[in-house]
């Protein structure tokens, strides 16, 4: 199968009992672009993310992922070892709460280096050097490499999680409200960091958020979800400046101006 997209979701439907969380969703993501998914709580955006990353199995529809060597895999019927291998190498998942993505009883350096060891790196010096370099990259002083994450502030923990996720230079990252629990002043730094790294490493990113401000600054494209459907999509400015669907208009007009 030939495809240019890095990930391609076709006609994906997922329901929980009577509740349809995602209904016939079709979505393509190309290398190097940031796609934002917005919508209120319960609109199905997190379910979509979990289906796309293989954590949930959809009721119907397909999710195709293309690796570097143009090898295409269907995530819906991939074996667990293959899925976990993807998670270690080509993908990463950045959680809203850094505690969900970090090992809290392992030092910062160990957290960052873990993926390297998981893919077979057995040279302590190299692993440590890479971990220190990534700490600096996410603007944490590398002298803190041996501290536990619990010594860090929420914003630093989130940056640590980003370093841990990106050290193997994945091709695709999924982010679920990456700045959700953070102070606004910290949020800005994280957004800048994500944007820079995504550009530098030419990563494709799918970011789920309810914050239109985050989407405006970060995403190239945006999809608006409501009740399990994509009601509108387009270039971010397009959707936010000239919303066509009633729900998007409501969403945009509800932003509080400061």
């Amino acid at each position, binding site marked *: 199968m030939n495809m240019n997209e890095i990930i391609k979701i076709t006609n994906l439907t997922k329901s929980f009992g009577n509740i349809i969380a995602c209904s016939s969703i079709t979505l393509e993501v*190309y290398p190097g*672009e940031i796609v934002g998914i917005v919508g209120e709580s319960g609109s199905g955006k997190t379910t979509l993310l979990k289906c796309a990353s293989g954590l949930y199995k959809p009721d119907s529809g397909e999710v195709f992922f293309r690796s570097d060597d143009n090898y295409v895999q269907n995530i819906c019927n991939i074996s667990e070892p293959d899925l976990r291998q993807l998670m270690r190498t080509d993908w990463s998942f950045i959680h809203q709460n850094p505690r969900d993505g970090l090992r809290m009883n392992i030092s910062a350096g160990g957290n960052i280096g873990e993926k390297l060891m998981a893919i077979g790196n057995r040279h302590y010096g190299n692993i440590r050097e890479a971990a220190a370099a990534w700490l600096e990259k996410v603007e944490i002083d590398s002298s803190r490499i041996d501290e536990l994450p619990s010594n860090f502030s929420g914003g630093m923990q989130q940056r640590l999680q980003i370093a841990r996720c990106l050290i193997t230079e994945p091709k695709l990252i999924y982010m679920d409200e990456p700045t959700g629990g953070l102070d606004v*002043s910290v949020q*800005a*730094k994280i*957004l*800048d960091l994500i*944007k*820079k790294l995504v*550009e530098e490493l030419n990563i494709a990113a799918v970011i789920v958020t309810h914050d239109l401000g985050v989407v*405006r*600054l970060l995403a*190239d*494209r945006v999809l608006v979800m409501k009740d399990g459907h994509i009601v509108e999509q*387009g*270039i971010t*400015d*397009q959707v936010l*400046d*000239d919303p*066509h*669907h*009633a729900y998007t*208009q*409501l969403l945009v*007009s509800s932003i509080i101006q400061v």
Partner: protein
Amino acid sequence: MIELKDISKSFRLYTQNSAKITVFKDVNLTVNRGELVAFTGKSGSGKTTLMKMIYGNYLPSKGSILVDKTDITKINLQDLIRIRNHKMGYISQFLRVIPRVSTMNIVSDSLIKLGSEKEDALAQASELLNFLDIPRKLWNLSPLTFSGGEQQRINIARAMICNYPYFLLDEPTASLDNKNIEKVITLIDKLKKNGCTIIGIFHDEMIRNEIADREIDVNSFK
């Protein structure tokens, strides 16, 4: 070359009793290479709406918009993003940036994004910021706390540092003093000499007289 063919645009406002507002009907317009066309008309007449349609921000209700013979209302989003990133600069009156990112980074990132080396981008950014009279001590600060005029110049710098063949200028000089207006006009002149196609909105008649090749009153499109 930018061509607008039979463009109509109306807004439907669902949050306000589904009111329908028609802004334009059957607009036809051609802007040639190296030409600077200025839109005129009183506030609310739709100058910005028309510009944003050309940038692909607003979708026309009808008609087509050709940039370099490519109909940007019909292409897929990735191609539109590519055109925006590599061909077309848009300078609005407002600066929109990630908070707490330094001025220097904002301006140089535009070039780095297009593939320039970091040192090279920083050097060009310094030159442009110098030219636009942004004090060096501000370069490492976020522009969000700067004065309106400074913000506007940084907005100009971050776009004009890239040599796009198309520029859309939405009152880039609105809050600048005369000295800085002259500098911006110098930059625009330079773009024109390089064959850049420009559509602009300038409230100041003097500026229009100085750089516009043609003026079009958008009220004629109603």
